[in-house]
């Protein structure tokens, strides 16, 4: 017992960094997911030419807190004859899978919970695919027909698009040559980001990841006009909040994987070009620009509370600018330059990817379930397999022909095959081709 305690304290001391980062992640994640919901509502409102939540707190900023409080104090309804243990465990499984997947993701050069994992990117994919059990068991344990059907539909969709997502990731991994997350990002340092070498792979991953996270236009299992709310029908209050938390965490996980594989991870644009080194000063300048904009708009506000609100936002942005500028200017903070700036670029790219998710939700109508399955099996999987084949051929010929030539030829071949699949899919059902890159 003595040695066990000693061993544990030694382990904690050796891994203090990752453990602290894990605690920070798990503590901040509900807050981040809640504010992601608010961001989604505000962006949805912006695209629909309205204002979104404005009442609770300045510009609706306390809305997630009000929502969380409401969900926590709601009555906990459990259906009759529901399997209690499984009913309780299912939402927890979804959240556990999503949060564990975040453990292997690197937000910056040293900002990772599970460092040096030899199979880093596969770990993220594998563990987040365990979230399917949360859905299937939740739908089954609710003892309701709608829930079971919704759960089966949702898990069939997830399983179908997992293969396409995996193949799209393989095309990025072929270029990286390693499964370690740090290795994948470092491989993009000397070359362009992998999206330039494998654009078909990136767009396949984009579509597949939208389907993987049950987001529109693939959100049939949880749309309100279909099967009530699918597998979440019988869940109310905090359990529903857990499912929602797992969905938004999955969005962040999927965006992080895409950023790591295709968008250069934590590297700034043109990371190895020295004469573009002035881009290092871009993050603090961006934050200073936002601060200046807020300060300029302060005198134009009619109400005092809005003036204070804008001043608070300006203060936060100035603080951010200071944190970003400190490693550039102050000598004691210089070792943290890579981590701080890397985190900023990583979060910027993840936010851009999630913005595309939100944009798709408010722009495209929903796919019917059979159209969804046809798109997955008859279009995305063949396209991603052909893409991997083409990329493999191009890389194998890399020492004889220039890389850009072989990549251009194989990408063109892949796009031609994709176009043929679109037309063939339309002809076989007699309706205008329902499949196509979203």
């Amino acid at each position, binding site marked *: 017992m003595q040695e066990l305690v000693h061993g544990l304290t030694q382990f904690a001391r050796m891994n203090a960094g990752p453990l602290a980062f894990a605690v920070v992640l798990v503590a901040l994640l509900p807050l981040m997911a809640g504010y992601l919901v608010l961001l989604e509502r505000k962006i949805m409102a912006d695209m629909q030419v309205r204002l979104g939540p404005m009442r609770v707190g300045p510009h609706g900023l306390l809305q997630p807190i009000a929502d969380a409080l409401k969900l926590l104090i709601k009555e906990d309804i459990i259906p009759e004859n529901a399997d209690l243990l499984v009913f309780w465990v299912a939402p927890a499984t979804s959240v556990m899978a999503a949060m564990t997947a975040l453990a292997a993701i690197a937000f910056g050069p040293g900002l990772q919970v599970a460092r040096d994992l*030899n*199979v880093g990117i*596969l770990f993220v994919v594998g563990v987040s*695919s365990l979230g399917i*059990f949360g859905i*299937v*068991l939740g739908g*089954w344990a609710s003892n309701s027909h709608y829930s079971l059907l919704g759960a089966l539909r949702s898990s069939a969709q997830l399983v179908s698009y997992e293969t396409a997502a995996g193949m799209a990731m393989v095309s990025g991994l072929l270029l990286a040559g390693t499964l370690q997350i740090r290795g994948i990002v470092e491989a993009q340092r000397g070359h362009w980001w992998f999206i330039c070498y494998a654009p078909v792979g990136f767009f396949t991953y984009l579509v597949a990841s939208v389907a993987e996270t049950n987001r529109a236009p693939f959100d049939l299992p949880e749309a309100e006009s279909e099967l009530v709310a699918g597998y979440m029908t019988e869940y109310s209050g905090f359990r529903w909040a857990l499912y929602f938390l797992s969905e938004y965490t999955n969005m962040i996980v999927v965006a992080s994987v895409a950023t790591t594989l295709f968008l250069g991870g934590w590297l700034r644009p043109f990371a190895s070009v020295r004469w573009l080194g002035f881009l290092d000063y871009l993050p603090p300048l961006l934050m200073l620009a936002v601060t200046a904009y807020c300060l300029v708009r302060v005198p134009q506000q009619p109400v005092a509370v809005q003036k204070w609100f804008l001043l608070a936002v300006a203060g936060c942005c100035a603080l951010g600018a200071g944190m970003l500028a400190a490693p550039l200017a102050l000598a004691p903070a210089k070792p943290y330059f890579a981590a701080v700036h890397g985190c900023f670029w990583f979060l910027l790219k993840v936010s851009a990817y999630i913005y595309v998710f939100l944009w798709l939700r408010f722009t495209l109508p929903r796919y019917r379930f059979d159209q969804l399955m046809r798109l997955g099996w008859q279009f995305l999987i063949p396209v991603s397999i052909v893409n991997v084949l083409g990329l493999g051929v191009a890389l194998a010929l890399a020492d004889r022909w220039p890389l850009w030539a072989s990549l251009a030829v194989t990408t063109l071949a892949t796009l031609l095959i994709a176009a043929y699949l679109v037309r063939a899919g339309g002809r076989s059902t007699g309706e205008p081709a329902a499949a196509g890159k979203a």
Partner: protein
Amino acid sequence: MHLLDKALFYVFAGVAVISAVLVVTRRNAVHSAIFLITALLATAGIFLQLQAEFLFIVQVILYAGGIMVLFVFVIMLVNLDVALRQVQFNRQKWVAGIVVLALAAQLGLVIWTAGRIPGAGPGPNAAASPAPAPQLQPNAEMVARSLFGPYVLPLEIASVLLLVAMIGAVVMAKRKV
């Protein structure tokens, strides 16, 4: 560190054995499936503790995330409430118990005495990990080199096997042949 290694092994081993017992004894097939998932994840943990990282992730993705999803789907498709109220163990359970005990005793004896018989191998007390290497070998690369090097023929045969299994499963589950 060695102590933490040992603790991890015993924790995972305990979870695996308890989950396995629960798999075999539950009345409800979905509960059995859930406990099989935990048993598989505990086995994956043991693989990770043995520093077989690629096998750990293959176990999680394929076994726990693929085969078990298939099992859970089929259980939900054939779930019969009437099956829950019937006898769970068949008529040969006592004979089977005796036979299994004999098997367990034989195998246990083999493991226990290995090493005391000359020429019978390293013995049960050989440390499962010889002097730790200064740096972890990149496990995925080594497995990949092995798979595409000496063992490429079984790899190709395995892909043919999977194709055959896919066609077989589709044919078996169709409504009219």
